[in-house]
């Protein structure tokens, strides 16, 4: 098969293949149905030489799926993806720890892998006998094939799965006999090692050709089996590290494409930037200003006045991160995200409400009729409102989520390695995901401050903007730094929310501590200012709620927002789950 595809599309430009992505969701659900396996699937990218991957690969708990299989006609490719994914699933379900590869020849490695493939498939078929139909049709090797090692191995593979297959070759027959005689030991991976080793020796003595460099596992649905072996090199890396390494590698390639020197790359985990951002990184709180400064008053409780134009607020552009980080967050919180989708679906339908005792309507209100008749008989004037109407109550509200990104959000959450900010980011992600499905207008903004002359305000997603990759990149790029001048941020958020024409307007604040700033020593000053700001918002019909991540925070949050509008979470990690459900509860 000539290498047409890779010649047509040089490295990095292989078109996003629709084939796998179009069936991905149903196949993922299929694995869940069979074995409750929820495995992250990644699209395998071309190797260093630009060749597209030819087989599925399993590593570090991920399935790397080629975008397409070469030489397979389109109608079969759906079935092939299914077969490949179930085979990978069978490995994940039944293959134990990696085999040590030390001391084995390439031919033996290939044969042990082949027996292991057959073993996990047999075990899978014990549970789900119908899987035979999924796999068998891809075994096309026949007894008349060439006597080369790959051909013999493809015939053996078929002999081990297809009960109706006849093959007179002595080696294939021996393999088949050894494998099925050991049926009682199928549960043990050591079996693959033993039988594979024996058969490898036999094949070696037959002096057939085997070139490990050209060898590709047959049939096409089976994975490359690299994940089976422990070559005794670097210790297996946890998935997150593997991903970082991978991302770093990709960044490197992209940067080279832009003709940048490699020295620009920091150590390892530089996040991939969108190519659109050629802005140099700026320090936190000093990003580019996008609008003329806003001036806001501030309440001074000591003299009891609003100091006019006391605080300067700048809207700034956020640094961009990698939107894929956000996609990964959704993947990691898949269960919560799914549950939220279900919740959102039920909240979305406008619910019918029955209005009774109406002067007109589409049907009679039985109770009102009876009352009317009772009054009539008593000689009173009956109440003419005897109808009822069914109306649908529509959702009509907009919400602004305001995140505190001051320096304290860079601290790790209690009992976990992640920072408060990354928890806020996850929460905002799930929140945006839910709201995007719900259709309520929403915005996500963030703030920090550096004295009264410089409050920074970031629009991650505005009300009019779609929740797209650009918004996700801004969310991914948030960093922690500086202080929390909450009152001014509330006033500005209120001004933006005020422009929304919806019936209800909701401001949700997430913060991890009490307001503070470098030029304020009096603890009460900013607290009272924030309280004043909340009262001002309430007067304009904006409902203000706060979620506090500081378990000791109830007292000061209550002081600012009022007891009914405060929710304190004792464990910050729960925020991603709590925030969207909290919103749904508020909004229905």
């Amino acid at each position, binding site marked *: 098969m000539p290498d047409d595809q890779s010649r047509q599309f040089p490295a990095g430009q292989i078109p996003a293949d629709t084939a796998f992505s179009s069936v991905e969701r149903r196949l993922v659900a*299929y694995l869940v*149905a069979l074995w409750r396996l929820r495995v992250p699937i990644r699209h395998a990218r071309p190797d260093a030489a630009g060749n597209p991957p030819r087989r599925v690969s399993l590593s570090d708990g991920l399935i790397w799926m080629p975008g397409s299989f070469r030489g397979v006609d389109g109608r079969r490719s759906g079935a092939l993806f299914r077969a490949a994914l179930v085979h990978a699933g069978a490995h994940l379900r039944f293959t134990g720890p990696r085999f040590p590869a030390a001391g084995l020849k390439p031919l033996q490695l290939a044969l042990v892998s082949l027996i292991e493939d057959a073993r996990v498939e047999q075990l899978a078929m014990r549970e789900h006998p119908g899987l035979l139909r999924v796999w068998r049709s891809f075994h096309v090797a026949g007894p008349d094939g060439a006597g080369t090692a790959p051909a013999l191995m493809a015939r053996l593979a078929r002999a081990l799965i297809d009960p109706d297959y006849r093959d007179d070759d002595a080696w294939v027959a021996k393999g088949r006999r050894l494998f099925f005689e050991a049926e009682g030991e199928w549960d043990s991976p050591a079996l693959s090692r033993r039988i594979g080793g024996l058969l490898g020796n036999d094949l070696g003595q037959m002096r057939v050709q085997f070139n490990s460099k050209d060898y590709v596992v047959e049939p096409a649905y089976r994975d490359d089996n690299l994940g089976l072996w422990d070559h005794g090199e670097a210790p297996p890396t946890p998935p997150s590290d593997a991903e970082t390494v991978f991302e770093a590698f990709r960044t490197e390639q992209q940067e080279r494409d832009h003709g940048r020197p490699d020295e620009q790359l920091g150590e390892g985990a530089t996040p991939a930037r969108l190519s659109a951002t050629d802005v140099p990184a700026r320090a936190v709180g000093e990003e580019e200003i996008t609008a003329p400064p806003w001036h806001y008053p501030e309440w001074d409780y000591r003299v009891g006045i609003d100091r006019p134009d006391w605080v300067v607020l700048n809207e700034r552009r956020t640094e961009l991160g990698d939107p894929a980080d956000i996609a990964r967050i959704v993947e990691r919180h898949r269960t919560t995200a799914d549950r939220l989708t279900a919740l959102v679906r039920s909240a979305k339908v406008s619910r019918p409400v029955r209005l009774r005792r109406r002067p007109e309507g589409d049907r009679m209100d039985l109770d009102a009729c009876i009352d009317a008749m009772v009054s009539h008989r008593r000689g009173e004037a009956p109440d003419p409102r005897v109808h009822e109407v069914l109306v649908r109550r529509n959702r009509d509200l907009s919400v602004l989520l305001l995140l505190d990104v001051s320096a304290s959000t860079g601290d790790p959450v209690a009992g976990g390695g992640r920072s408060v900010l990354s928890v806020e980011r996850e929460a905002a992600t799930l929140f945006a995901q839910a709201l995007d499905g719900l259709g309520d207008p929403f915005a996500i903004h963030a703030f920090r401050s550096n004295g009264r002359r410089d409050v920074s305000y970031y629009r991650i997603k505005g009300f009019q903007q779609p929740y797209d990759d650009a918004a996700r990149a801004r969310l991914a790029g948030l960093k922690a730094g500086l202080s929390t001048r909450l009152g001014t941020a509330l006033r500005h958020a209120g001004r933006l929310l005020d422009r929304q024409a919806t019936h209800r307007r909701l401001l949700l604040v997430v913060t991890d501590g009490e307001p503070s700033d470098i030029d304020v020593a009096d603890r009460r000053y900013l607290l009272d200012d924030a309280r004043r700001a909340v009262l001002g918002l309430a007067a304009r019909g904006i409902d203000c709620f706060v979620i506090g991540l500081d378990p000791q925070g109830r007292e000061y949050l209550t002081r600012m927002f009022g007891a009914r509008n405060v929710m304190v979470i004792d464990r910050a990690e729960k925020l991603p789950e709590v925030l969207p459900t909290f919103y749904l509860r508020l909004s229905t």
Partner: protein
Amino acid sequence: MALDAHRIPEEPYYRPVAGEVALFEAAYAARMPMMLKGPTGCGKTRFIEHMAWRLGRPLVTVACHEDMTASDLVGRFLLDPGGTVWHDGPLTQAVRHGAICYLDEIVEARQDTTVVIHPLTDARRILPLEKRNELVQAHPDFQLVISYNPGYQSVLKDLKESTKQRFAAIEFGYPDAAVEAEIVAHESGVAAGTAALLVRIAASSRNLKGHGLQEGVSTRMLIHAGRLAAQGIALETACRIALVLPITDDADVRDAFSAAVSAAIA
């Protein structure tokens, strides 16, 4: 006698799973209000029918819905040529004549409606009929039972704390594979092997719960599939029309579930 239509003449089939019959008998002896919790189609309604038969009480069932008002439960004045007449609602009938009153899917009813059961579910055991200015003392044999599906209702629909705390609860789930197969075989008339296979298929749909399915296939659905198979419909087709098609409209999940069905059938 009143409520004769609500008596259960023959024993409804029920296969006890974990001592729930004895628990319920003890609760009935104390006339304790009971809550049956569990996913749909796992046998809650059948259980209460069986218990009503076993205890020899009539069973008044009310399927709750969102538009239900307190008068739908308690009763209302109706008109006849002579004037207004009071008509007892199902709850009042059960209270007067000593039946078991079963409020099915109580969370569907609005919370202000369910409050009418409060005086019945504490030591008072009375039902005030304010429109008639009457206080009905509950018959000594009266018991209130509600059912409640915690998985399926959302944060938007929940029982009030003050309602919840009046009940003792028995939790129902899908039984073990062997027991469930026995139930499916008995109710549908398929062979034990087929029933076991159906239960295995159900397991794969229950794996999908939360991954596209709101709820896995229930025992009741398996019985439907079994009944079709018992009439000679091919098992895969029976599963398709009784399990796969009803449970979801999501094409991808449907495809995954049908593929899992065919993977289970040799």
